[in-house]
């Protein structure tokens, strides 16, 4: 890993050039808030850096809401996804483990993953429900993205992480190695401020392992209480960077459509004949917590809750999982 520096103006020009050979998605502000947009040359100056977090989780780029999975995957132009917060970079780990497990590789996921360059953005500052650090995830990408960006006034600092990242920046002129230690120190100070904000905001919130233990031990009362305003809309799973359950819908010609599904929908586990162990709302509600904090950790290396806080923001029943956990502590 090494650092490079470039003037923001030159970086913008470089991006415009990259647009000739890549499809680029980058976060920008629109009427719905901050989210990824398909980048056009005239939008380069609108890209948001350093700020958490796009409304859409990263998984959506690899597992679209609906897709015919019995056709041949389309050949797509190479993609760059920019401005990804580290919570989402870490959140891609679980879908990768599940969809590329070596035994049954999902060709659609695989092609897209190979075809995508991930450019992370360090979070300098936090949003109301950010709590990545409580689950051991840093707000700054260290290992999994190809490149990471930090904008410091009129300078773009680039951390080069992977070979894929190294290859991409070969196309960028005016890059200089970062030799000025005072800039690195300044970045470190900004990192520290963000971490302090996260710690202050989430004081008392149990860590991931402790949460798992608390969820496992909790009796039905807490699930009944917190699910009382749940309307089973599935927004929490849809918006979650690690939830990837789906439904296969049959079409004539033995075609199958893979469509996002949610364990929060009634009938998710119903079998022919009508048996449904998740029929009751509080059981479905609990299922999601058991899955994220107890079952998935027993089974997979990657984390199943990244602390992005999107499920809290998205909930129309105003259910906060963190309030629930604080009550369990």
């Amino acid at each position, binding site marked *: 890993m090494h650092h490079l520096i470039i003037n923001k103006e030159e970086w913008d020009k470089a991006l415009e050039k990259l647009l000739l050979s890549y499809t680029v998605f980058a976060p920008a502000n629109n009427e719905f808030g901050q989210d990824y947009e398909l980048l056009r040359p005239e939008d380069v100056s609108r890209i948001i850096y350093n700020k958490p977090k796009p409304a859409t989780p990263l998984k959506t780029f690899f597992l679209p809401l609906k897709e015919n999975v019995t056709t041949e995957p389309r050949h797509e132009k190479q993609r760059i996804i920019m401005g990804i917060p580290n919570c989402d970079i870490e959140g891609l780990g679980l879908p990768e483990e599940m969809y590329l497990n070596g035994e049954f590789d999902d060709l659609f996921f695989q092609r897209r993953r190979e075809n995508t360059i991930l450019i992370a953005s360090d979070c300098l500052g936090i949003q109301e429900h950010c709590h990545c650090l409580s689950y051991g995830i840093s707000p700054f990408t260290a290992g999994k993205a190809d490149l990471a960006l930090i904008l410091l006034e009129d300078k773009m600092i680039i951390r080069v992480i992977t070979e894929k990242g190294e290859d991409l920046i070969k196309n960028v002129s005016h890059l200089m190695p970062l030799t000025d230690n005072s800039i690195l120190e300044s970045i470190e100070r900004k990192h520290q401020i963000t971490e302090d904000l996260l710690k202050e905001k989430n004081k008392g919130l149990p860590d991931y392992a402790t949460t798992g233990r608390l969820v496992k031990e909790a009796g039905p009362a807490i699930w009944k209480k917190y699910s009382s305003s749940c309307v089973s809309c599935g927004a929490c799973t849809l918006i979650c960077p690690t939830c990837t359950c789906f439904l*296969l819908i*049959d079409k004539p010609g033995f075609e199958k459509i893979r469509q996002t599904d949610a364990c929060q929908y009634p009938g998710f*586990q119903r*079998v*022919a*004949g009508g048996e449904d162990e998740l029929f009751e709302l509080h059981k479905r509600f609990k299922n999601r917590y058991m899955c994220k904090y107890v079952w998935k950790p027993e089974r997979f290396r990657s984390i199943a809750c990244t602390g992005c806080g999107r499920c809290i923001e998205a909930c129309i029943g105003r259910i906060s999982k963190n309030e629930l956990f604080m009550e369990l502590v």
Partner: protein
Amino acid sequence: MVNHSNIYRPLRAKLTDVIEESPLIKTFILVPESRFSFKTGQFIELTVDGIGEAPFTPSSSPLVTDTLEVTVMKTGYVTEYMHNLKPGAFMGIRGPYGRGYPVEKFHDKEVLILGGGCGLAPIRSLLYSLEDITGKLRKVILCYGSKTPKDCVYKPLFARLNKISKFETYRTVDKPDEEWTESVGVVTSLLNKVDVTVKNSIAVVCGPPIMMKFGTIRLLEMGYQDDQIYLSMEKNMSCGLGKCGHCMMGEFFVCKDGPVFTYDEIKDQPNIWS
């Protein structure tokens, strides 16, 4: 045998015959467009074109690779369509998926099998496998229960098995008719009749959840250890690939880790009997 190029695309199979086993149960005989093999107890996803697919454990012998038999009870949306299919139609198959019966572990053992209703389908496939290794087994005891004599499936199977030394079969129904001469009562009541050396035995249970539950309880009472009891679990296996999440049973994906588990493996998981 999994289609590696696209894990979601089914292999076409021609329906060549349909056997009516009972008013609600039919066996479909399929000829896949390419050879298809499976291990007994593994399952497949069977597609009705344009309608849907559902998981079934083949009821035929795993030694036969040019045809495949699947026994289906009419119980929901997809199976209702299946029951209306006529020979000549094409169906789709994906798989085989999951972990079947570890037949090699049954060597030198007395195999006690409890089957209920349509749960005899996977067991018939297992019985074909056991027939093939009769010499390596001590004894095979099949206890089968159904609601009425009309609901008993595979009628010729019992007559044939009874002619094989080392094989014993017992049948019971909940509600007998005038012609019924065998046992009456739930399937666990047959266990009072069998002569089995529990210590040197393994038990296999397959049937409706309620029967699996009470079957297991009774076997434990008889002295079977948790790891001597093999259960074939019924969940909503949809993708078969350990991805879609519909069949999760605690940390297990029934489609990948099962559908055959020992009771020991799953006894601490939630809602195993529902």
